[in-house]
């Protein structure tokens, strides 16, 4: 098996540990912003959409890529913006 393949699986394994460890430490008070923030991160599919829309290939491929960029960007930008709006409301007094 290709060495790079195994490296990827190791990254996956270690990132899972980091993820569980980090997110378990988020207090319940912040669980809604955590959910919307994680949701924004999952819009990382925008990277694939950008490549699809920018290759300058067949028309259909580019149009589909463009639509994908639009929807993924709403997910990313809207997700971060609404999370920020929530978090700025948490005040000490």
């Amino acid at each position, binding site marked *: 098996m290709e060495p790079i393949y195994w490296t990827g699986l190791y990254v*996956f394994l270690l990132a899972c540990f980091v993820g569980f460890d980090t997110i378990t430490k988020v207090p319940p*008070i912040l669980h*809604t912003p955590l*959910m919307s923030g994680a949701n924004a991160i999952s*819009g990382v599919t*925008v990277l694939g959409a*950008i490549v699809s829309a920018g290759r300058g290939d067949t028309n259909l*491929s580019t149009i589909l890529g463009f639509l994908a960029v639009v929807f993924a960007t709403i997910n990313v*930008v809207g997700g971060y913006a*609404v999370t920020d709006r929530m978090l700025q409301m948490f005040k000490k007094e």
Partner: protein
Amino acid sequence: MFSDYIDIFYMTAAALFIFGLKYMNHPDTARKGNLLSAGAMLMAILVTLLDHEVVSYGMIVAGLVVGGVAGVVWARIVKMTDMPQMVAIFNGFGGLASWLVAYSEISRLTPNLDHFTTVVLVLALLIGGVTFSGSMVAFAKLQGLVGGAPTLFKGQHLLNAILGVVVLALGAVLLASPGAWPLFVLVGLIALLLGVLLTIPIGGADMPVVISLLNSYSGLAVAMTGLVLSSPVLITVGSLVGAAGLILTKVMCDGMNRSLTNVLFGGFGTEAAEPGEVPVAAEGGEGQPKSATVDEAVAMMKAAKSVIIVPGYGLAAAQAQHAVREMGDLLAKNGTTVKYAIHPVAGRMPGHMNVLLAEANVPYPQLFDMDDINDEFEETDLSIVIGANDVVNPAAKTNPSSPIYGMPVLDVEKSKQVIVLKRSMNPGFAGIENELFLMDNTVMVFGDAKETVNGFVTGLAGK
């Protein structure tokens, strides 16, 4: 060349995503964490724009502008009570984007698809499609566009299983004949149908669990794509999202004392709707609840040294958050200790009640999680329950025949006195009787939550 150094930027982005989530461990640093995470995303997008495969920028810039403006506007105008729907629809758009990217690649590559790419594209269509249509059903149920009741029909699970097998079979055919693109269209459509079929049997109140789970799936899908493309940043980011989704799913299931299987396949809410099946509390049903006037309740509040306010979704539904905060401020001015006890499933998603109270300017150090405050009820003079029912029902601890038996609840009945604000004596949403309302130390104040609390505020402010 620049591309030799591109991985340094992706690696930095991955580190920033992790730091961003790490800063979410405290309300003081959470905002910085979210901005770090957003910065990491921006960095990843900019680096991708420099990718050697990207040759034309018109469509990309147009897409980023349209999506960005729509996202910002939407995030600004959404009401905080509508947060579950908002997360659902954004999550759905993420799924739709994956689904569209898959078709973009299919239209570009057909018929030159290798086996590996075919498998990935089928998976992307399946997960993206299910996430999209499932999230849209969740959105519709949460927004009240369709009824929240579970839709069940005979052979539902069998149909889902058959559709799953058909997708696998289509995938196998595509491996053998890469040019058969109409089969990809079929796979994508079946995925959309599956998303709907898997979500309609789940009750409206359980939709946040579904969204959290779908978000976790989309995270794992990102990680899988990362494995395929040997992109460590995608593997890392996908694992983080997957972990967040799974943990929040578990938090919600634990808060309701139900298994994930029960949420997904239980059709919860159907049994409770049938008359005659509603279990009546075995004991404690002696006599009527005592009701109190607003003035009597105010007198109790003025006498109390310590007060715990227990908000439920009924408070948010009545838009009474601001009035409650005013009440809390006046009590604190009188020298009373004021704390808020938040149940994990108070509100419509985990942590939702905290956001709603923070919006009403309640300082977050006054907000306490169930586990942190449950021991304090015993030493508390007065608990004020506003729009909460099942999460304060002692039957969950004492009555094994109760449908909510075993669910973690707030020990409100242990405080010296309890005031319950309720619209009427009708049993709650799940049709379960609540012994707390009949206890000796409990008085009920009937009426609209907002009007009642405003009455309290007037009473507390006047001499």
